[in-house]
């Protein structure tokens, strides 16, 4: 039996100019908030932008951006609604606030389903908040989304970077372009991550200082835009756009 969904994923994304996957080998490094702020900053610069949350077991961009009471339109598939001027797609339209206890193969199937049925309009950028790690979901997304390019998020921690290093190696082996590495939640300036990234011959996109104000802005895009965190991400977005 042949899966007919695989045939149409490329067609669903053909009007998208650039696909940027924000990922991390490890959870808890701020991947989702970086993805949300990156998408928002590209929108604020006048680009047409979509944001796709593929972190199905822990979706959070809807919380960060305060997306509520939206639902996709059905039109020869599904059309993501506008949230803060961006086309926004998340599994939470269907799972609501309930846990989604999905095993790896189920996550893959759900990702394939969503990629196959979601109709993206003409976009300058589609930012994808990726599932953490390098398991089924990440491998399938890489396999199915042509032209995907990665931003890898780490913290200054050696523990976090060790997983990021493995992720960079994997992406290289899969011949997936890496736009660069973002060092998030920096509390004390050191050159460790920059040196490590450059030793891998990857691009160090920059450091994002830990912003104690950020938590208070969760769900409030207006407040998020006023943070130092957002200004830094907005600056970094010029390097990847």
């Amino acid at each position, binding site marked *: 039996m042949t899966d007919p969904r695989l045939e149409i994923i490329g*067609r669903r994304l053909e009007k998208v100019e650039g696909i940027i996957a924000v990922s991390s080998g490890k959870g808890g490094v701020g991947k989702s908030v970086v993805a949300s702020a990156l998408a928002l900053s590209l929108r604020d610069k006048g680009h047409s932008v979509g944001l796709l949350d593929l972190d199905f077991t822990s979706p959070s961009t809807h919380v960060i951006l305060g997306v509520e009471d939206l639902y996709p339109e059905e039109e020869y598939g599904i059309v993501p609604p506008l949230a803060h001027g961006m086309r926004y797609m998340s599994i939470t339209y269907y799972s609501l606030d309930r*846990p989604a206890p999905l095993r790896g193969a189920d996550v893959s199937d*759900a990702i394939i389903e969503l990629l196959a*049925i979601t109709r993206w309009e003409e976009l300058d950028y589609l930012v994808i908040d990726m599932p953490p790690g390098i398991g089924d979901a990440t491998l399938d997304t890489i396999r199915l989304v042509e032209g995907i390019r990665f931003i890898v998020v780490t913290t200054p921690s050696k523990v976090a970077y060790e997983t990021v290093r493995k992720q960079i190696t994997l992406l290289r082996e899969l011949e997936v372009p890496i736009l660069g590495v973002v060092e998030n939640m920096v509390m004390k300036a050191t050159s460790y991550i920059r040196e490590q990234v450059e030793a891998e011959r990857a691009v160090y996109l920059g450091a994002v200082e830990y912003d104690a104000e950020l938590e208070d802005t969760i769900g409030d895009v207006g407040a998020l835009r006023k943070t130092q965190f957002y200004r830094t991400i907005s600056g970094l977005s010029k390097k990847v756009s």
Partner: protein
Amino acid sequence: MHEWALAEGVVSTATRIAEEKGLERVTEVKVNIGELQQIEEDIFRFALDQLRTPLLKDAEFVFETTPGRLRCRVCGEEWSFSPGGLSEDVSEAIHFVPEMAHVYLKCPGCGSPDFEVKEGRGVYLASIKGIVRDD
């Protein structure tokens, strides 16, 4: 209207396979429909009909339905998917993304959400028949 997206996939896949196999005309496309996806067959058939490519212009679309069978990974209980008792919202969520079954359904034996969908998940192209080009 989600049926249109799946129909587009079926037509596109059947057409590609027919071209690869050197068929000049497809006579039958058999589609397996998993019960979990709760496809509205009238809409699906209409969409397939509207999306026909020249190679599929005379093809008959044949549907076979696979009942949804679920098996608990904790206690081993097996049961049949029954859309009848679901609310409209839950039914629609599973219709769009069948994996949402894990969000809303529980094992009737032990209450665990950790189960596998053994059969009847979604839509698959089962087979195509056609006439091979002479050359």
